[in-house]
């Protein structure tokens, strides 16, 4: 009989893509292996996956969150070591970093995609108001002012209700320009820089300036409110992640464009957050380990990269072999990879390993800063204090 | 004040007609007793007067005002329920006082009325108890007390003494009569006890199957029952009914003779009979006989008598005391 390989995932939205494109492509090549895509709600995924792994009822293939969450599973020996998997050589160490041990020696997931932050804008609105793409901070705020004074559009669609918008689409979006991407991130991890340093507080000061351009009652505006505001044409700019592309394409009735986070001053080196987001690993207790490995090998192949990236524009392949994409918006995002320096979200690696968790704290403080509950300086202090309470970086010793 | 007028009151439970057009006028201050066989509609009628049961047809007037659709609270009545319906969470004292308290009666007066009622009903030792801690008779007395303290213009009593012992029953009966005289309130009283009915009532209403059979003073009903039903219902033991034809009487169907008017003799008399059964009640002796001509005959003899079953005796009765009924069961007046 056919062996059935089950995939655990939080990507419920992708169910159609898997069922209609990815799985048939695989099964056509590998008769005798059946693949079932069994997603869970994203909010429940970690908890339910952990429970299932502990009890031994989890699926064969595990979709991996980046960094610590998966590392933890690997340490508990719930994810198999895939260092020697055929096809992993298709990925650069940087691409694999999110799913490798700190020392980079072992890799336990096959990277699938990363997401890039930036701003999506309503092209029709920009054209109508005669605004060109802002390159620098000043241009950015000038554009916002212009939209605001016109009054037809809400300048920017973002809310603080769910907090993560403020942190992810706000702080992590524009921040790398100030802390200089990987350089600052590494310094933070090593303890050479602190969150109270100007490089890390500056993005908050920028965020504070966003407040007047957000919609009425942005404090209670949810993520889907923001999405709808933008796609229904009521807002001009949307601080975004590339994962929005597919949805926006299907919902927006106007032309869209995208621009990367504006640099502080003209001529500055620009940075973008190009964040590894999703990968797949092998449940070490899988009864169909061989078949599952076959599948993973296929995921590591350029073929998969091409199917995936085109089926889900906005999720950019991490595979070294270049992928041809058809979606213009996606191409726009990915085109920044050259001129802009890529970095991952500052809080993801190592720094969110303890309690309090820097990522979650950053959500709270980003929202607080925009809401006016905390000043940028206070926010920095709070974050650093939380981090200090458990994190002892090598440099500080 | 306090008069009551029922005009062709009818009541259905589903399609089952329980009250079949009851017409009755009760004067202010009158004491009217409802009697009738179990299930004839006495309680239903009382509840309709109280406003606890919607009537299906007809109207009810209290104090000349149509209250057919007024809520019970607006009718100025007090009621003693056949099932007591005490407030389980209140002490005996509060059970009695609650209605007054609600009406805003001053505390001192409530206390005074409650203590008066409870002494009248021998309830003093139980004032602090709750209904569950009382015996059946005690509960019934609380129910009476609750109605009595309110001193309304119209009292409705549904078999209020059925669970009391003879002595207490007599005593309470007298108290109710006294209360009636003192308050001059109208009282409607349902009972199965003939003595109560005869002694308390200004007028007795005999009901049968949802209809009034006869209304009249106790002696009127006793001496001049309008029909076989009333004749048989009033008086215990029941009146003897003898087929007139059997003893050669003409112009009537049935002859009725009360047991107390039947005389027995061992030596002579009109009809021979055999004693079937004898009940010795102390003050009276009830003798059940079987006569070939008369059929079953019951005789009630004053005092104790040494009759025994199977004895042969002679039965006689004075024709002057006989009641005559025609083919329809209606009394033939002389």
């Amino acid at each position, binding site marked *: 009989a056919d062996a059935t390989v089950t995939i655990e995932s939080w990507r419920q939205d992708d169910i159609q893509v898997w069922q209609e494109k990815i799985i048939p492509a695989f099964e056509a090549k590998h008769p005798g292996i059946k693949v079932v895509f069994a997603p869970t709600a994203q909010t429940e995924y970690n908890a339910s996956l*952990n429970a299932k792994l502990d009890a031994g009822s989890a699926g064969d293939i595990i979709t991996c969150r980046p960094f610590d969450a998966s590392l933890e599973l690997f340490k508990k020996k719930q994810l198999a070591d895939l260092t020697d998997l055929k096809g992993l050589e298709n990925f650069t160490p940087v691409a694999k970093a999110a799913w490798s041990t700190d020392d980079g020696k072992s890799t336990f997931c096959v990277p699938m995609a990363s997401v890039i932050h930036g701003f999506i804008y309503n092209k029709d609105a920009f054209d109508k108001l005669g605004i060109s793409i802002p390159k620098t901070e000043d241009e950015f705020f000038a554009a916002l002012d212009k939209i605001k004074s016109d009054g037809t559009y809400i300048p920017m669609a973002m809310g603080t209700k769910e907090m993560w918008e403020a942190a992810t689409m706000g702080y992590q979006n524009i921040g790398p320009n100030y802390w200089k991407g990987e350089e600052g991130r590494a310094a933070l991890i090593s303890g050479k820089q602190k969150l109270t340093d100007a490089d890390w507080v500056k993005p908050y000061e920028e965020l504070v300036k966003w407040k007047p351009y957000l919609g009425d*009652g942005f404090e*209670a505006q949810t993520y889907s409110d923001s999405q709808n505001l933008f796609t229904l044409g009521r807002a001009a700019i949307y601080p975004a992640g590339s994962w929005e592309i597919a949805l926006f394409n299907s919902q927006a009735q106007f032309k869209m464009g995208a621009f990367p986070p504006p640099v502080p001053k003209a001529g500055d080196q620009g940075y973008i957050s190009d964040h590894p987001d999703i990968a797949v690993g092998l449940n070490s207790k899988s009864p169909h380990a061989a078949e599952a490995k076959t599948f993973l090998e296929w995921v590591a192949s350029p073929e998969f990269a091409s199917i995936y990236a085109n089926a889900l524009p906005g999720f950019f392949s991490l595979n070294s072999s270049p992928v041809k994409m058809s979606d213009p918006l996606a191409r726009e995002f990915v085109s920044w990879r050259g001129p802009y320096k890529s970095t991952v979200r500052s809080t993801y690696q190592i720094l969110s390993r303890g309690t309090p968790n820097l990522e979650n704290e950053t959500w709270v403080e980003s929202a607080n800063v925009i809401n006016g*509950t905390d000043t940028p300086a206070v926010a920095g202090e709070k974050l650093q204090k939380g981090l200090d309470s458990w994190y002892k970086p090598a440099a500080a010793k | 004040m306090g008069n009551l007028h029922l005009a062709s009151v009818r009541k259905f439970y589903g399609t089952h007609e329980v009250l079949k057009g009851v017409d009755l006028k009760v004067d202010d201050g009158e004491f009217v007793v409802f009697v009738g066989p179990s299930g004839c509609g006495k309680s239903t009628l009382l509840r309709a007067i109280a406003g606890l049961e919607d009537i299906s047809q007809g109207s009810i007037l209290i104090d000349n005002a149509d209250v057919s659709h007024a809520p019970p*609270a607006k009718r100025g009545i007090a009621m003693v329920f056949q099932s007591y319906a005490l407030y389980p969470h209140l002490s005996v004292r509060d059970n009695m006082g609650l209605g007054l308290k609600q009406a805003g009666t001053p505390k001192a007066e409530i206390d005074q009325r409650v203590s008066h009622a409870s002494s009248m009903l021998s309830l003093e030792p139980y004032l602090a108890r709750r209904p569950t801690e009382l015996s059946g008779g005690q509960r019934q007395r609380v129910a009476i007390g609750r109605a009595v303290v309110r001193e309304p213009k119209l009292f409705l009593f549904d078999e209020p003494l059925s669970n009391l012992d003879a002595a207490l029953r007599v005593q309470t009966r007298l108290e109710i009569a006294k209360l009636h005289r003192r308050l001059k309130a109208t009282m409607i009283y349902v009972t199965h006890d003939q003595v109560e009915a005869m002694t308390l009532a200004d007028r007795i209403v005999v009901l049968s199957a949802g209809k009034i059979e006869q209304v009249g003073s106790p002696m009127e009903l006793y001496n001049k029952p309008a029909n076989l039903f009333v004749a048989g219902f009033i008086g215990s033991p029941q009146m003897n009914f003898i087929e007139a034809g059997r003893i050669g009487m003409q112009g009537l169907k049935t002859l009725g003779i009360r047991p107390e008017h039947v005389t027995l003799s061992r030596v002579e008399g009109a009809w021979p009979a055999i004693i079937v059964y004898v009940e010795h009640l102390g003050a009276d002796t009830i003798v059940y006989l079987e006569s070939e001509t008369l059929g079953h005959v019951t005789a009630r003899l004053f005092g104790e008598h040494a009759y025994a079953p199977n004895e042969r005796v002679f039965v006689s009765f004075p024709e002057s005391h006989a009641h005559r009924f025609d083919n329809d069961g209606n009394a033939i007046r002389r």
Partner: protein
Amino acid sequence: MNDKIDGTVIDVRKATRWHIGAFLLPAFLVYSAVMILPLAETLRQSFYNDVDGALTFVGLANYKVLFGDARWSHDLWNAFRNNLVFFAIHMCVQNPIGIALAALLSTRKLRFAALYRTAIFLPALLSFVIVGFIWKLILSPIWGVAPYLLDLVELKWIFAPWLGRTDSALVALSLISVWQWIGVPMMLIYAALLSIPDEVIEAAECDGITGWSQFWKIKLPLVLPAIGIISVLTFVGNFNAFDLIYTAQGALAGPDGSTDILGTFLYRTFFGYQLQLGDRSMGATVATVMFLIILAGVSLYLFTIQRRLRRYQF
């Protein structure tokens, strides 16, 4: 005089009453096996922690962290305070209104009673997902339903993005929860009111005790045990609550932790959230503390209030 005998009654039926065991057994078995044993297993972890990758017995160390560590204890007490507010609002709004609705519904011969009952209970039938979603929409300044409605009654000025403000989010959520759960006290009290015999009410009617005073003086005392139950259920429910806040405000119970209650705190700790990994040991510790708080409340009720409540048999 006879020698005085002690008046207490000893239950003298000595034969082994197997039926008691038989009545208890099925519930006991299922409940112990599926509920208590796993729970005990979980709570046990509060005495263990991960030391160098191995689960080790650490005694009360986890509790020391929870109460001693400034951050942990801040979160705990913040959640506890919020929870008290949450509970107080339910007790003061949900239960009185629920009881009042039940009283109105039990009016005799009320037409459409079943309809009203269903309508009022309907919110309780909805999943938290629906409730969270729909109220977020209604209160959303973007969608504009709430401002629009307030405008109708000239009250638009009081509108604010309530769910997004630290000073109003908890109250707003409590009221949403009240809206959702009001049917529960209503149903329970309604069922209790139904068991009052007609005749007692009729006697009250004859006594001139009608309307509200009938409710206060007759019905309420008779359903007091049911009110005790709803108070306990509210208490237990509120101190265990988490779903609504989880769906409406997210696991971080924002803004700025202002809607964090013990339940959300526990779930965040136990199951983790986003990058924060679940910490079973600390989670179990929080759960144990919560359990003790609730147990204390329930015991207080069972041993002081419930014993004093009189019950009436009908």
